[in-house]
């Protein structure tokens, strides 16, 4: 059951839906009338794009990997803000309000700020990234994301020398998120983090789409982190804030069960979860009586990321 609790809004504060829906066209028309001529295309005046075709692939995109059927990816999400049941989040997440959306970049940066998602996207080059996703629950998928390099975004904020870690905060929207309303289980909003060198690694992206279209709400719309060599819970959905920090952030799962979910959470078949093995994984979409996939160190991205952890005991820093 979906219980909608909404703030009371005075009648005169509500914009006519038609005006709201066509606001950008209207503004364009008004500006065009003012300028008395054609207007250069302005990103902030464009509707958020929802479809992309034939994008260039990212540097480490696995073009030859067969993506998991999108129907499975769209109906199997761990989105605990909505439900502990993967299949229930699909419909519950549709209540999430994602327009307008802004992203705050703050902390150890020269140019902190709050940006409209549209303005932010206008400055980034979107590419396609076919990445494997390995959940800590020992299942995996292959997803063709559409997004941009996190490093490129962080560059625009000019990180200071003190920036050693990056903290990501997911949306706090208790009016649409039942488990935030109930304060169920985890501490909300959801927080994750990366070391700065992990954050600026070319594999790390912020995604706005998948399978050629805008990311469905249950999969983390409108903006989510994707860190393919780490367990899925590191890849925060619905990011609203990125903070550069001097010290490691306290992340949600790590705080909840520090002996089970480490800060690094690198995919590693040699380091079992305290309660279950991480040696193999069930690839979604594979049939009955087919073997499980042998999980790879760093989810198969070892060639790219292993140098980040040279000299570190991965059993200790799990």
């Amino acid at each position, binding site marked *: 059951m979906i219980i909608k609790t909404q703030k009371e809004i005075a009648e005169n504060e509500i914009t006519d839906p038609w005006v709201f829906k066509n606001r950008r066209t209207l503004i364009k028309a008004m500006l065009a009338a003012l300028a008395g001529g054609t207007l250069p295309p302005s990103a902030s005046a464009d509707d958020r794009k929802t479809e992309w075709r034939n994008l260039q692939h990212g540097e480490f995109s696995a073009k030859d990997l067969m993506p998991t059927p999108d129907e499975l990816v769209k109906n199997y999400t761990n989105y605990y803000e909505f439900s502990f049941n993967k299949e229930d989040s699909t419909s519950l997440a549709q209540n999430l309000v994602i327009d307008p959306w802004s992203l705050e970049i703050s902390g150890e940066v020269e140019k902190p700020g709050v940006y409209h998602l549209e303005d932010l996207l206008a400055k980034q080059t979107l590419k396609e990234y076919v990445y494997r996703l390995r959940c800590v629950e020992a299942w995996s998928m292959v997803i063709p994301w559409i997004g941009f390099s996190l490093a490129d975004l962080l560059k625009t904020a000019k990180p200071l020398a003190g920036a050693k870690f990056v903290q990501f905060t997911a949306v706090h929207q208790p009016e649409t998120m039942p488990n935030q309303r109930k304060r169920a289980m985890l501490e909300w909003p959801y927080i994750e983090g990366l070391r700065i060198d992990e954050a600026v690694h070319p594999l790390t992206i912020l995604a706005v789409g998948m399978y050629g279209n805008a990311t469905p709400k249950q999969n983390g719309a409108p903006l989510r982190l994707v860190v393919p060599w780490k367990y899925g819970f590191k890849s925060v959905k619905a990011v609203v804030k990125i903070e550069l920090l001097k010290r490691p952030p306290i992340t949600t799962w790590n705080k909840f069960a520090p002996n089970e979910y480490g800060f690094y959470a690198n995919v590693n078949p040699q380091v079992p979860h305290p309660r279950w093995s991480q040696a*193999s994984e069930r690839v979604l979409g594979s049939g009955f009586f087919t073997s499980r996939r042998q999980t790879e160190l760093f989810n198969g991205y070892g060639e790219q990321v292993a140098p980040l952890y040279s000299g570190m005991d991965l059993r200790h820093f799990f």
Partner: protein
Amino acid sequence: MLIKIDNLWWFALAGGLIPLFWLIADAAFDHLGANPIQSLHIRLGDWSLRFLILTLAVTPVQTVTQWRGMAEYRQLFGLYAFFYASLHIVVYLLVDHALIWPTIATDIIESPYIWFGVLAYMILFLLAATSPKWAKKRLGKNWKPLHRFIYIGSGAGLIHYFWQLKGNLVEPSFYLILLLILLGFRVLTCFKTRQPAQTAISKGRQ
């Protein structure tokens, strides 16, 4: 009181197969969701646990209602618990792991939650094997203490369930409460009958 228990037994026997046909139908019509193997596996485990709880419920129901002849149902439900646990394991070995033994070995060794499942299954196996009348006769006095291992088996089964979960604990908590009620009932009756039983014996000797 007017219901004939004999007829009901056949209903119970047939009813125990409904979850199996339901699962087969869901598998055939692709209704098992995005991760059908896991769904099949979990649902079989759920049914094993449910039958185990039903088995444990028979004695308290018999005591409270003073109905007679319910031991047959206890046996039937117990065997169904074993049946679904066996299918649960077949699905794990064959459907999920395609009988690739090195992967299976690693998985079992590295997953403590599976150890409790293995313990629960070993107990269920032992109890199912000693379930027939001839076995009961042969074991004599030892049969009852042996079959009290069901308490350990159900506890291990529940730990097996709890320990694999990351999030939602509502459903296993429901079974935990049921199990505590059913085991609590035995503790209570044990306390109640101990004193009078001893006096009854001493009276008999006079």
